[in-house]
């Protein structure tokens, strides 16, 4: 089994830049063929930024099943493991919400920006029905979509912006 020893990758495990280094090391070494052990031996992390920039960032870009299948963090303290799970779960939800809002935007465009039926969404998206429902509930709370009384889903202006990635582009263009 392949292994990445975290303390060999970064001398500190606090900053986002530290997490970024670990992520790069993981991305170089991981594959579907062999699970990669990420060894935290002797380290105390308790840094959300570090975990977020390493594992959290990976969970934004890959399905949870892929993350779980390819990676095996070892020698983590229980609080660190709980923090890691919390961050990966949070980012995995965020990834799903993005997928769902983009799919809603795509279907909405096919309906002249009108509301879409939940069934239409389910038939085209790379997510389960349960994941779609949870994501829609969260998107509605954030004001990105509105669920009409008849169950159809309407994308808001903010939702369109989110789906187009304008919000991210705006952020990434900052100095």
């Amino acid at each position, binding site marked *: 089994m392949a292994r990445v020893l975290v303390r060999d990758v970064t001398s500190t495990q*606090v900053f986002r830049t530290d997490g970024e280094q670990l992520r790069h090391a993981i991305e170089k070494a991981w594959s579907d063929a062999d699970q990669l052990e990420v060894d935290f031996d002797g380290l105390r992390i308790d840094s959300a930024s570090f975990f977020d920039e390493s594992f959290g960032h990976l969970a934004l870009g890959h399905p949870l099943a892929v993350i779980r299948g390819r990676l*095996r963090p070892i020698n983590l303290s229980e609080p660190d493991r709980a923090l890691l799970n919390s961050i990966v*779960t949070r980012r995995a939800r965020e990834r799903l919400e993005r997928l769902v809002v983009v799919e809603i935007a795509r279907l909405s465009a096919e309906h002249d920006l009108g509301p879409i039926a939940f069934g239409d969404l389910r038939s085209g998206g790379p997510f389960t029905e349960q994941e779609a429902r949870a994501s829609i509930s969260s998107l509605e709370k954030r004001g990105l979509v509105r669920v009409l009384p008849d169950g159809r889903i309407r994308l808001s202006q903010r939702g369109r912006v989110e789906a187009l990635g304008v919000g991210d582009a705006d952020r990434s263009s900052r100095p």
Partner: protein
Amino acid sequence: MLAAWPPPGTTLLALAIGRRVADGGDAPEFVPPASSDAREFLREVGFDRYLDGHGAARELERQSGTREMRQMAALDPAYIHQIADLLAERVPEMSETTSHLIGLCMKELLQNVFEHAPEVPGGPVLCFVHSRWYLREHNVRVAVVDDGIGIPAALRRRQVRGLQRASDLDVVEASVAEPGLSSGRGRRGLGLKLIRDIVTARDGTLTVISGTAKVKFATRSRIMRGRKLPQPFRGTAIEIDFRPGKAIPIASEPADEVF
């Protein structure tokens, strides 16, 4: 706000439990900020002795436990671990999870301070960390105060959309409510929102003063109280205050057992 700074990297420490965790030095001297609200807040979070110019004064009567203060010019994880360990050792009912969370919150707060440090003209940013616990009230309080440009100015410099004309109060509220607002290079950080979630889930409060804004996120109902200060506070002062005995897991939202 603060005067008589030693050279960057020098560690100043005032503590009441007879345990030094850093190099010695004179007690820091404070010039009280102009804003009476800011002065009052600093007094609340434990800087009273220094505001009064009595760095080595006696313990407050109502206080029991640790009182540590340190000036930093860069994030020092070892120091944070020492604080967390010290609290775990001294505070009754302090669970490993809570000790871990205190370390986590301190790291996030300090990272915010030093991540924005290059933006400060004439830097470096200096910051003070102060942690205390109260036997009678059963709470732990950690304060981080820096002399940087402050949250409103930092976000306006980043030209975050919608915040250019917003009040300091709105900007500070948004910086806590919307994760990633202050993160650069396209990153979406968790930062203050994560801290707010952790603290409020444990019957605690998160208070932020920066610019002319003072915002408090309170317990359970997560009610937010915001107030405009008559005079601006240079830098940022943040305090977290929560109960160590609350046996609540790290995640405030349900998390999968991914690993």
